[in-house]
């Protein structure tokens, strides 16, 4: 059998924009006299409301429905689907007292109506470049969350300052700017620091071209820069700790001593370079220059000295239980693959701890990559938690439900 050399055809996208119908008289009046005058008119006369998009218990609310009042009426004017279980929920949402309903802001799934659990902990598994908690939390009006990009580690000094610098923009966008990152921390930063230096080692050694870390060439250069900055800050904190131990004649762990030596040897070269790196920049854009490639040997020394400190920390991480510390400490770390497996296990243990804390503290949302939600599910979720796969089934369910209501709206 031979086929025509053409792609198969299929129906056009069913989830495009709202099904636009002609504006009714009220809408025309609104555009003619302006929003404020129209609002005044509506306040005097509740009849000419433009609304087709509110549903209560699956039934569309009519334009003259007596249940609409001065608070709920504005919800009926913006042509977004809203789907409530009852009048009370509509009124609560309109008055801003719910934290589980809203419209996604986009760019992915823009204006999709989402409904999470009104009680317990909503666990959101996401792809970090699609629908994320950063979009969901403001959409549902919640600042009661923990989130993977934020650290739950108890740290101070330069480490804390560097982490806050790197995350302050996201904290602000999520409505918790100026707050304590740890209050919203979803995991530990240290496995990420360890992985980052492991992954950067071939670039620092010359085995891989630093040009791969340029913005135009890939994505890794951006997180690589972010976590290199935190790594350097932490290395300086370790050097301070070593100095204090020495000053008080206490034993210094050899791994920390070695890292402190690297910091001392390379501070003059690395300090101005690393602390001068911009937030959210790509490492290759500055490192892939003749002048800064001279820093590669120093950066390689940093990576080599940093790794043993991280491996030692995993086995004694104060954010984990003693059983978890023991388990991590017993994992092999001799090869690249073994270290990768240990870092991954380290992260998942922090997600487990973050979940325990979230349940105990009444946290409403815990956001993480879908792979980590799958891990938590494989361990058995505690009661009162509600998983949502925002990469597949659940976001598709929200999109399809929204599209269905748009289609039947009159």
């Amino acid at each position, binding site marked *: *059998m*031979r*086929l*025509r*050399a*053409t*792609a*198969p*055809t*299929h*129906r*056009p*996208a*069913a*989830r495009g924009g709202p099904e636009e119908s002609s504006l009714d008289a009220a809408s025309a009046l609104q555009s003619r006299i302006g929003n404020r005058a129209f609002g005044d008119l509506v306040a005097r006369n509740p009849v000419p409301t433009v609304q087709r998009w509110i549903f209560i218990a699956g039934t569309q609310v009519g334009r003259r429905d007596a249940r609409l009042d001065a608070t709920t009426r504005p919800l009926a004017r913006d042509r977004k689907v809203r789907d409530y279980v009852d009048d009370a929920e509509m009124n609560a949402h309109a008055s801003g007292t719910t934290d589980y309903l809203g419209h996604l802001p986009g760019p992915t799934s823009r204006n999709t109506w989402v409904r999470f659990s009104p009680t317990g902990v909503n666990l959101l598994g996401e*792809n*970090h*470049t*699609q629908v994320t908690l950063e979009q969901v939390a403001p959409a549902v009006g919640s600042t009661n969350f923990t989130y*993977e*990009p934020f650290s739950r580690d108890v740290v101070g000094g330069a480490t804390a300052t560097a982490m806050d610098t790197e995350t302050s923009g996201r904290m602000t966008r999520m409505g918790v700017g100026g707050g304590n990152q740890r209050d919203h921390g979803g995991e530990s930063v240290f*496995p*990420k620091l360890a*992985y*980052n230096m492991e*992954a950067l080692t*071939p670039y620092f050694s010359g085995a*891989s071209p630093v*040009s*791969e870390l*340029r*913005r*135009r*060439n*890939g*994505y*890794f250069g*951006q*997180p*690589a820069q*972010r*976590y290199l900055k935190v790594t350097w800050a932490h290395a300086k904190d370790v050097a301070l700790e070593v100095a204090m131990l020495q000053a008080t004649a206490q034993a210094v762990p050899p791994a920390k001593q070695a890292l402190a030596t690297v910091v001392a040897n390379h501070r003059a070269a690395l300090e101005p370079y690393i602390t001068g790196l911009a937030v959210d920049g790509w490492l290759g854009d500055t490192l892939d220059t003749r002048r800064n490639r001279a820093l590669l040997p120093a950066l390689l020394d940093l990576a080599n000295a940093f790794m043993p400190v991280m491996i030692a920390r995993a086995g004694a991480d104060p954010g984990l239980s003693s059983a978890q510390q023991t388990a991590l400490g017993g994992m092999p770390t001799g090869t690249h693959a073994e270290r*990768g*497996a240990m*870092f*991954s296990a380290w*992260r998942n243990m922090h997600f487990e701890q973050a979940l325990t804390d979230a349940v105990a503290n009444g946290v409403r949302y815990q956001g993480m*990559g*879908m*792979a*980590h939600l799958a891990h938590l599910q494989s361990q058995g979720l505690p009661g009162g938690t509600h998983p949502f796969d925002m*990469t*597949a*089934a659940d976001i*598709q*369910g929200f*999109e*399809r439900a929204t599209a269905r209501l748009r289609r039947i709206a009159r």
Partner: protein
Amino acid sequence: MRNVRLDLLVTRTAPPAPALSTPMTIWWLGERYRVRDGYGRGYAEIVGDVTEPRGFGLVPRTIGEFMDATASTPRGETDLWGDLASPDAMVREPSGREWEADSVDIARVAGQVFAPRFSTAPTARDSRLGRDAWEYRSFLEGRDNGVKFRSLVRTLVADGYVLMREVTDARGGPMSRLMEVTELDEGSVTEGDLRPS
């Protein structure tokens, strides 16, 4: 009536994550289709193969995603069923969970094995799977992360099928995606192949 089964190997490269090779099988019987991802990738990753603007698929971008990609292992099989005549498709995840999805994107995944119309002449002649094939070159262009991208697409076409599609960074970056058809069997698809078991 369309009746064909194709085995694919899809390889994605996004350093420093290790290359990810995914075996896939696509069945077509008339207007109906089925896609099996033999690595058990998630829906977003499978659809991302054909929707991501740069042509590399859904590749890691954050440190967490690079870590997940580095630690990733095969998870079983993900199956997707659909019909061009229906807006609804079905997804079965490796866990056994089934759910309905929008068929449009899944149809694009299943349809990646059919050649589009090219506006340019073929650039080379080749042979693949015992068939005479023509190579076409095209580009994907746009902006990503605030910078322009240009992806080179090499497509090997025989008898209306895409037997190979390689996407590389025309500006020299390391990311790539390679889809190769490893077996093509016409006329062997049965109702049972298209029926969720």
